[in-house]
Structure formats: C-alpha cells, structure tokens
C-alpha cells in the first residue's frame, strides 16, 4: 500500500490519498481497508488528514482512520494519536497497521504497530524519513 497526505501553505487545506494492490493470496473480489472511508484514510480540515496501511481486514474492523481522527479531536498529538490507535487495533482485533497523520495545525504524526513502515515527510525544506521504530534520517529537499 502507498499513501500521501498534505496540507497547503494557504489556509490549511488538506488531502488524503491511498492506493493498494491488497494482500497476496486474497480471494477474488475481496475488498480491503484502502477504499473505505474511516479505515484506509480520512480528511477533514477541521481536524486533520490520515492515510493508513497494514492488515486491511483488521483496519476495517477497527475503523483505524476514524479512531485516529477521534484521538486528534480529543487533543492527542498526531504521533500519539496514530500510535495509540495502531496499538489499540493490534490488541483488540489483531493484525498490525501503520498511519501517517497531519493535524489541522500542521503537525506531523507517524505511528505503526508493524515491525516496519516506510515513511517520509517534507517540512521547511527538509525531508525526514525512516522505516524502523525510533529511526529517523534527514536529507535536504
């Protein structure tokens, strides 16, 4: 799965995009989380924008993107909102997941309960990126 979320520099307009091939060996006709609003992604300028990835059948059952939105509305930082929801999903329904988040104030959040998630973000001319927990590299745009 791949995803991109963004906030423009004027007025805080936000977008969420997610695209996937699904899961190897899925039944023909299986629908995953990606196209489902509130699971594979969500976006509301009043709250934030999110794209998720991971075990789609678990993500749908837990409404992962919606849970992260709710955490943001409850005042959590984007990092905490994403990590809490991914960990909550893994504990409650199993499977693993990851999410990228931007809050309405432009803060970035990265969270995942899987061993790895490839992520990168651009802020103030610097690209920050990583794949393992606690790991962060940076490079100039």
């Amino acid at each position, binding site marked *: 799965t*791949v995803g991109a979320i963004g906030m423009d520099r004027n007025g805080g307009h936000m977008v969420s995009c997610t695209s996937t091939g699904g899961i190897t060996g899925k039944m023909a006709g299986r629908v995953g989380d990606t196209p489902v609003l509130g699971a594979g992604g969500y976006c509301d300028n009043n709250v934030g924008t999110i794209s998720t990835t991971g075990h789609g059948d678990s993500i749908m059952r837990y409404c992962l993107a919606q849970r992260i939105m709710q955490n943001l509305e409850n005042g959590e930082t984007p990092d905490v909102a994403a990590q809490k929801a991914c960990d909550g999903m893994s504990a409650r329904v199993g499977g693993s997941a990851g999410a990228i988040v931007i809050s309405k104030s432009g803060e970035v959040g990265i969270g995942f309960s899987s061993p790895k998630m490839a992520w*990168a973000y*651009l802020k103030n001319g610097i690209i920050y990126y990583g794949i393992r927990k606690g790991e962060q590299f940076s490079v100039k745009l």
Partner: protein
Amino acid sequence: EPVIVVHGGAGNIPDNRDQPKFDGILTAIRKAHAIYKQTSSIMDACQAAVEYMEDEPAFNAGRGSVLNLKGEIEMEALIMEGKDMKAGSVTGVRNIAHPIALARKVMENTPHVFLMGASANEFAQKMGFETVSDDYLITSDARTGLDNFFKSGSEPITTEIGHGGVG
C-alpha cells in the same frame, strides 16, 4: 511551504527492501513538491506522489501490486479532501496504471463516492484512461509472492510486497 507526508506500506518488510523503499518515498516527496510549486494544488501534489509509487514495482500498488488466488491484480484507491469532505474511491479495478487518478475522477465527475469492479473500469474507459496489460502490472516478485503463499500452505501473510504483502 506545504506539509507533505508519504508512506510506502507496512509489515515485515525484508531488509533488502529498505533501500528501494527509501529511494521511492524520497522521489515521491520530491515529485509532490515539484508539482505543488507548479500548480499550488496540494491535491495535485499528493496524487503525483501516489502515482509515482504506483509506477514503482518496489511498492504494492499499481505496477507491482500483489496477486489474488487466481493470479490476478485487483486494485483499490481512495482520495479525500478536507474542505468539503468530498471523496472518491474504487475497488476491484484492473488494467489501469493509476487507480488514485480514477478515484479522483469518481470524486469530481460522479454524484457518488465508491465505484467497484467492471463498472469502475467502464467508468475509467469513459474518462479516457488507457488500458495497461497484465504483463505491465504483474512483476516477477508478485508471482514469486503468490508461489510462496501456495507453498506455505496459504498461511496468513505477514511480509510485505511480493513476498506476501499486507495492503
């Protein structure tokens, strides 16, 4: 400056996949930024980032998508904007290069949110999308992933792309 964030999938990604993932996500960010500078549209920018990753076999989307039990590719995508909370999504789409672009067409050119299967492909045709072949979309890694899936007794999948990817 805009804020742009991308991901390239999660799971038990084999270590030899780290660098192709890094290369892909860094290029995706740079492409998004370049498009934003040209258009001032954050939607165009994010779509460009996803389209780039859909073209890259290092990712499980578009070209490089994993295979279902029949050895076929069925792709899905979702786009949503935060001002009016408009959205477009597609599932079960075949033989197009950029499902994210089709999702955007659903959002902008239909009264609906979600199109599926053959009808989504029919809509793509009406919107002028070119068809791409299975040979273009299906990579050797994806075939190997399905072979391994069958060899492993169809156990639940825990690794990413090609490899038994999670979506």
